[in-house]
């Protein structure tokens, strides 16, 4: 049947083009100069893949597919357009959780039908199902925490044992589902319910400060889940895109955890701040109350000023005013630089985005390694709404929760 064959060929060719566009897009997104074209390339790839999937042989239910796409797409478009730049991290968590939920839904459809073609395929569907469901529930909790819907980190004794028990029970049910391809619907339901509960109980005890790492981890997990379901559906575009995101996201998670001086195990299995009970220690150095006018004079007559912005500045929406101030200083011939700590804002690079929003050119912005030596030659360090990232305690006080975290040497200015 030639029509069938050409449709199959068109789909395979289009998925190939999509995979190339995705990888090229991600590559372009890794440089500030080409970053914007990168998302356009990836977007083109997504459009091609989505359109060509309508040609899939043997598809029905178009009356359900189109409304679902429309509702999900319009809601996401609307929310994505109006969210403030400071709230980006939780929106990424939300959209990422939706992807994880979709991967789990694919697994659920395949497993309820019980027609996965063999044990390998069944195991892959189960693995993608648990990872996707955990990512879905966990990302929802992460979103609720960053959005301020959940304000407390819920912890109790034996919590980790409970989580381990939940994980064990989920894996047992998953093995049952994978081993008996026609498992009773009740077992499949139990498996997914336990996976969702596991995602919730895993994420609840994690404090807000660690959330960026967790969101990045769930981003990688969703990628992996998508890749696994790609194997189940024999869909090359899903396999490649999911796996690329899975490995890239894992590396990104490690980079973030390292920048925050937290190991991944620490983030997942201990509450943040548990060690910082006795942060006493006498404060050395002097705190001089200073008038705004004096600050202005100091900076106007300085030859080199380094601005250290923190999340506090972003919450106060002060970045536009700061940029106006900096422009005035530049006009006076002052050498102004921005020093960004890797975790300034809520995740690595978040502060760069916020400054870019205010119009600060990215060549004035330096990161920790580039600028730390320059503090000694700077006349003024202007610290706005930042605290931990310039706290010298991280160099000296071993009982401090931020001990050992690389900091900006602002106290040396």
């Amino acid at each position, binding site marked *: 049947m030639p029509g069938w064959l050409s449709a199959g060929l068109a789909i395979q060719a289009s998925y190939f083009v999509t995979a190339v566009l995705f990888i090229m897009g991600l590559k372009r997104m890794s440089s500030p100069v080409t970053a914007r074209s990168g998302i356009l390339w990836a977007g083109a790839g997504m459009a091609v893949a989505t359109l060509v999937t309508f040609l899939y042989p043997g598809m029905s239910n178009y009356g359900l597919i189109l409304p679902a796409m429309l*509702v999900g*797409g319009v809601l996401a*478009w609307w929310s994505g357009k109006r969210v403030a730049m400071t709230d980006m991290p939780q929106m990424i968590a939300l*959209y990422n959780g939706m*992807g994880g939920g979709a991967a789990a839904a694919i697994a659920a459809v395949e497993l309820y039908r019980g027609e996965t073609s063999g044990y390998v395929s069944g195991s892959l569907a189960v693995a993608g199902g648990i990872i996707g469901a955990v990512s879905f529930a966990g990302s929802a909790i992460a979103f609720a925490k960053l959005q301020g819907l959940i304000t407390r980190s819920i912890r109790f004794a034996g919590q980790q044992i409970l989580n381990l028990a939940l994980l064990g029970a989920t894996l047992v049910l998953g093995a049952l589902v994978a081993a008996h391809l026609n498992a009773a619907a009740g077992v499949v339901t139990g498996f997914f319910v336990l996976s969702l509960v596991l995602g919730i109980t895993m994420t609840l005890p994690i404090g807000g400060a660690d959330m960026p790492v967790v969101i990045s981890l769930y981003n990688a997990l969703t990628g992996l889940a998508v890749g696994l379901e790609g194997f189940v*559906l024999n869909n090359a575009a899903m396999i490649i895109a999911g796996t*690329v995101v899975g490995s890239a996201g894992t590396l990104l998670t490690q980079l973030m955890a390292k920048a925050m001086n937290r190991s991944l195990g620490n983030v997942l299995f201990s509450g943040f701040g548990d060690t910082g009970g006795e942060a006493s220690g006498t404060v050395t150095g002097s705190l001089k109350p200073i008038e705004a006018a004096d600050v202005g004079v100091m900076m106007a007559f300085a030859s080199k000023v380094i601005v250290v912005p923190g999340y506090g500045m972003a919450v106060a929406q002060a970045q536009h005013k700061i940029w106006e101030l900096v422009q005035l200083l530049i006009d006076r011939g002052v050498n102004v630089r921005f020093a960004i700590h890797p975790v300034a804002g809520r995740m690595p690079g978040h502060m760069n985005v916020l400054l870019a929003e205010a119009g600060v050119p990215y*060549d004035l912005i330096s990161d920790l390694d580039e600028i730390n030596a320059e503090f000694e030659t700077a006349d003024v360090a202007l610290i706005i709404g930042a605290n931990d990232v310039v706290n010298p305690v991280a160099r000296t006080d071993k009982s401090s929760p931020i001990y050992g975290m690389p900091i900006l040497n602002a106290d040396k200015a």
Partner: protein
Amino acid sequence: MTGMVALYIFMLAAFTGYEVISRVPVILHTPLMSGSNFVHGIVLVGAMVALGNATTPLEKVIGFLGVLLAAGNAVGGYVVTERMLEMFKSSRQRGGTKGTH
């Protein structure tokens, strides 16, 4: 495709992802995380196939939710990534103020 070929694809894609990210400056970490979040929105394709082959009401309900969530992932991921990266474009046009790069 056979299991072995699938395994090779998996390995090569994993290395590709690692390599593509490893040279990224900190300045682009958040946009890139958002961008990779958009890329796994390709799950939409799988969700469409799953719903397209669904027969029982239960499968249809789950498949419907899957497509809805996947579309949200893809569209939302694109919109927020595009919004973030748009700012980098404007900074390039203005560029050359007092750069050290």
